[in-house]
């Protein structure tokens, strides 16, 4: 298949793996082994597992699966808020499919649907807006979540809803930002990450400039990376090249999609509709300053939090759950106390087990043999 097979060529892969192995002896021995490279984005985690990339690389390199799966980092309290909204008789609650399984403290959206709540899967916020137009007697709430990747589409839906005067459409906003979260991880004392594979689709929107502090202040290399397996190997090689040269910079492996200044129109739509929250709660990582956005006052009529007085409950993660340590690379998924026993993809306890992009779920489906 054109434009796909070129990025999965086994001969190129072998050449890159050799080039990576050849770099290892040049990296100062003062760095602890295995070297830890965090792929920030859940899409990269999926690629790494689906193509068996971790096994192709020398043992001296280890991927740490970062916080970039928005479904995974959704805290239990927010899921409870979703369920409470969905259970209101006037509400049609619309959501992306993979959020349906995330466990709340009482139930997931899937269970709420089985219990009679009107929960519907949509593929885009515009589908939800369409539903609102077709059901003027109901309140259609769209569950917006994701990083800067999905923010522009949600923003556009709100701009359109206001323009067209669709009064029965609103957004339950759970959008989060990646920059504050990377910073929180770097500030955490139990991490020892050597470099980053930067998110591809987030960067398509925000560009590469916002990462500057990672190289300048925290002295870590970051390479923005595409989602094909050769992209991941290539970007890994670029990170190691920086380590070998003892420099750190923000580089862009995914230049065929990501521009240095991002997408100005998408950024304008985000700025029009959203503003930073003072803090936002993350599953596994706790509260992080300025890591989420909310709907601006100008769009208050379309903000489900204001419209329905969402209680905003905060619920602590289950105590046995070690999602936070996995997210920071302090432990591997299978080293968690409940991995594969109390916590499985069928009965996820921690959110990393929920989505196929979650590190634990990917480990469970694709990677068990690694530690068998």
């Amino acid at each position, binding site marked *: *298949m054109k434009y796909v097979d070129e990025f999965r060529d086994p001969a190129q892969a072998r050449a890159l793996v050799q080039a990576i192995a050849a770099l290892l002896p040049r990296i100062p021995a003062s760095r602890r082994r295995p070297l830890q490279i965090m792929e920030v984005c859940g899409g990269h985690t999926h690629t790494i597992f*689906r*193509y*068996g*990339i971790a096994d192709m690389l020398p043992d001296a390199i280890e991927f740490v699966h970062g916080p970039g799966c928005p479904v995974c980092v959704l805290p239990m309290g927010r899921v409870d808020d979703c369920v409470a909204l969905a259970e209101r008789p006037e509400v049609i609650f619309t959501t992306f499919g993979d959020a349906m399984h995330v466990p709340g403290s009482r139930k997931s959206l899937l269970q709420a649907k089985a219990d009679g709540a009107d929960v519907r899967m949509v593929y885009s916020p515009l589908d939800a807006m369409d539903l609102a137009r077709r059901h003027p007697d109901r309140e259609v709430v769209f569950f917006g979540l994701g990083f800067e990747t999905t923010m522009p589409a949600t923003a556009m839906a709100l701009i359109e809803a206001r323009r067209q005067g669709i009064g029965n459409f609103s957004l339950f906003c759970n959008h989060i930002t990646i920059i504050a979260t990377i910073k929180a991880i770097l500030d955490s004392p139990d991490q020892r990450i050597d470099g980053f594979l930067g998110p591809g689709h987030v960067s398509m929107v925000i560009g590469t400039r916002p990462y500057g502090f990672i190289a300048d202040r925290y002295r870590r290399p970051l390479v923005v990376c595409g989602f094909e397996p050769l992209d991941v190997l290539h970007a890994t090689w670029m990170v190691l090249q920086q380590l070998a040269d003892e420099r750190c910079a923000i580089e862009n492996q995914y230049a065929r999609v990501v521009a240095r200044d991002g997408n100005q129109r998408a950024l304008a739509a985000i700025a029009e509709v959203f503003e930073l929250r003072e803090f936002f709660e993350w599953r596994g990582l706790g509260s992080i300053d300025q890591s989420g956005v909310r709907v601006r006052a100008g769009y208050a009529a379309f903000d489900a939090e204001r419209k329905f007085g969402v209680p905003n409950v905060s619920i602590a993660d289950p105590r046995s759950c070690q999602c936070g340590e996995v997210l920071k690379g302090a432990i591997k998924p299978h080293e968690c106390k409940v991995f594969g026993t109390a916590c499985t*993809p069928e009965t996820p306890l921690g959110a990393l087990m929920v989505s196929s992009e979650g590190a634990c*779920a990917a480990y*469970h*489906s694709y990677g068990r043999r690694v530690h068998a």
Partner: protein
Amino acid sequence: MRDRTITLAHGAGGRAMRALIEELLLPAFGNTRADALEDQARMPIAELARAGDRLAFTTDSYVVDPLFFPGGDIGALAAAGTVNDLAVGGARPLFLSCGLVIEEGLPIATLQDVAASMRRMADRAGVRLVTGDTKVVERGAADRLFINTSGIGVIPAGIDLSASNAYPGDAVIVSGALGNHGVAILIARNQLALEADVASDCQPLDGLVSALLAACPTVHALRDATRGGVATVLNEFARASNVAIRIGESAVPVCEPVRGACEILGLDPLYLANEGVLVAVVPAADAARALDAMRAHPAGADAAIIGEVLRDPPGLVTMATHFGGERIVDVLTGEQLPRIC
């Protein structure tokens, strides 16, 4: 029939129901009025005994949405699906039942089309639709039409196919390209604004199984790869036989439009439903002969050897990726797609 839509009267046991059965269903299924006089179909044991030494009996319900899709419809699925469940046990399928649960308001013409397509599929497989039942429920109590079919077949003496019969060294063969049914249904639902020229592979597999067993009586295990796809069947084999199975991604047949749809939607063809593809486990020495026999049959033209059975680690299915890595092919969690069949 004069009526244009199904009403509750068609399930009430009175005149309307008799008209539905006598004027629509009996002719469609090729039965006479005399065939329907009793509450049960009757079949001579002697005829069955001549065909083999064990009965095979199976049942399946069909709730696919939409009712009609490229390459088939709920009727074709209901006939072929149950025929296939018999065939992969090595049985010669002989008789089917047909239970209909109809939501009031279904156009009679729709029912006519579905019944005709059941008949066509049954004829292809050489089975007879011999007994049935019709229920009509209020609007909203079911979605248009659900069908249950049960099937009876006879297993010839000497044939012993079982999921627990896979041995280290055996070859793993699939009979055709994967995922066509799943993708055809997805596209037919029209929610994705996605277009691709993909038709369901819905077809009876009894002829293919006969051809395979005739050429290669040593086949160890057969199963049709419906919901959960080939990945699920391989895991069932690995667990039941306590062996490992290793497949090669490059060897797995997937047609280009299905691959494209999987790329866009993030689906894995190994987990997509098929309605006319089986997985066979055969001794390595007979693999070439089995493959030739399958390819010579129209239902197996794209058959391919995709992997082998190993001793260790027991119960695990792995795949050498085309890219050069290796990964686990686990069982599916949750539903990939509701109401696929």
